[in-house]
């Protein structure tokens, strides 16, 4: 999944660099990529969402 997200980020960077007129599409994909990143972190911490220390 991390691989897929990096491909998505590459696509967004390409839009910003070479197709700047697609700003809305690029930003929408950016939000999607952020969501995937956050979701993958939550998958990795789903057995204890908050830090395992005295809070």
């Amino acid at each position, binding site marked *: 999944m991390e691989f897929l997200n990096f491909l998505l980020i590459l696509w967004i*960077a390409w839009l910003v660099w070479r197709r700047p007129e697609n700003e809305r599409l690029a930003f929408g994909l950016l939000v999607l*990529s952020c969501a995937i990143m956050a979701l993958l972190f939550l998958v*990795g911490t789903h057995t204890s969402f908050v830090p395992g220390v005295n809070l």
Partner: protein
Amino acid sequence: MAVSQRRLRDALVALVIILIAVPIGGAVVLALIHGDTPCILCWAQRTSMALIALVGLFIVRYGPRPRYVGTAVLLATWGVFMGFRHSALHLARDVGQGFSASIFGMHTYTWAWFIHWTVLVGIGALLLFLHWKEGEGWPREPGRAGRFAMGLFVVVVGANALQAFATTGPPPFLGQADPVRFSFDPRRWVWSQEELGGRLSLRGSWTIPEPDVGDVDPDPAHGPLADLPSLSASGWERIGVPLAGALSGLAHDPATNRFLAVTDRYEVYVLDGSMARSLHHVAVDPGFSIDLSPFAGTAFVGDTLAVLSTNKSYVLLRPDSTADADLEWRHFRETDGGMRELRLGRFATVRARQMYVLSLAFDPSADEMITVAVPSPRHRRLVVSRFARGDLVLSSEFEPRPAPGLRLTGEDRSLAEYVVTGAVVVDGLLYALSAAYSTLLVIDLRERTLRGAYAVPELERPVGLAARGSQLFAAQADGRVAVLERPGAESPRAEE
């Protein structure tokens, strides 16, 4: 301070280039040189940094629109949380026991925490100098440096994508908690979905309910040990002093024939040998410097009174008729003026970590204090922890095993079902009284075995245990005390 928007844009480009080249690009270099491979949390943090750099490129290209600045702030804030959550796995380990690559003495997960925090500082600094209105002042073209940043970004993120493919695989595979070292050889690649396993939890192994004796089953017939002999009370006594709160611990000092009683409201009473008269009384202030949870056990340690809370924090007191009332005001909510506080502290355990306690004993022959951990749904163990009197640091821990002759009632039963609420040491034996199943356990401290066990059906959720001569005093929360004849050193179970 007047800073042109072009100069501000150039500063942003420089920051983006540093972010791309150092942490995101440097991570790939670590893989090539050291075989360093990110775990699933590292990947999320690295991706977050790439996304922050990408938002920087958005700003370079389109200007500092609020939605871009807002996205960068949200990403950095989330990154700080990720860094804290990830670092917390390792922060409390011993010296040199961190995980993954160490750079200038800090491991990569700690760097991720620092970098996201630095991004927030950077955004704040840039906003200080920003005088931007939609379509005004901000350069329309990214410029040479901006285009270089975009090209560098594509190259570095492309390299990260290749590393991600090798170490995490294509969907539906995802990163791992414990990855293996990086290799160009596809036969060495590990692709898995192991991170999808395990149950959802907010606090994981820290989800420990505070112990509640009211919840336990007092019936000895339901206990994990089979065919236990019964022990009857030879009499009942009652603490004759009105107690503030429920009794939670009892001890006896053979040298002075005094009793020591504590309650769940932080009250400490030194009683005479008949338990009818209070010789000293204080109410300890449980807050400030070290938090004391409700008192759970107590013991005489020579002329020192040791009082233990359920959270393994302790207070050491000493009767002293010359105690300075003004000095002791900070320690006590109430005092009769004849007590001073010697020390506050916390017992640190290993096997009994993340477990509460409900008892305290003192072993004079070993000069050690002893606690017995109570099990929780997360940690089902019966752990005896011993602490040296000299420095109050853990000296040993063990889980007693049943001696021959003691039999569990089923394969799924264990000694960890007992909830020890009172303990006392006599002649090298730890007498531990369990409120669950109203059972007296006799633990050989040298052999680390459970030598004997006795059902005490007359008890109703006892909270403390003291010894005087051949008698044991099993205290209950309401102040009633059952007097039992102490079983000898020989195990009746083994003899049968």
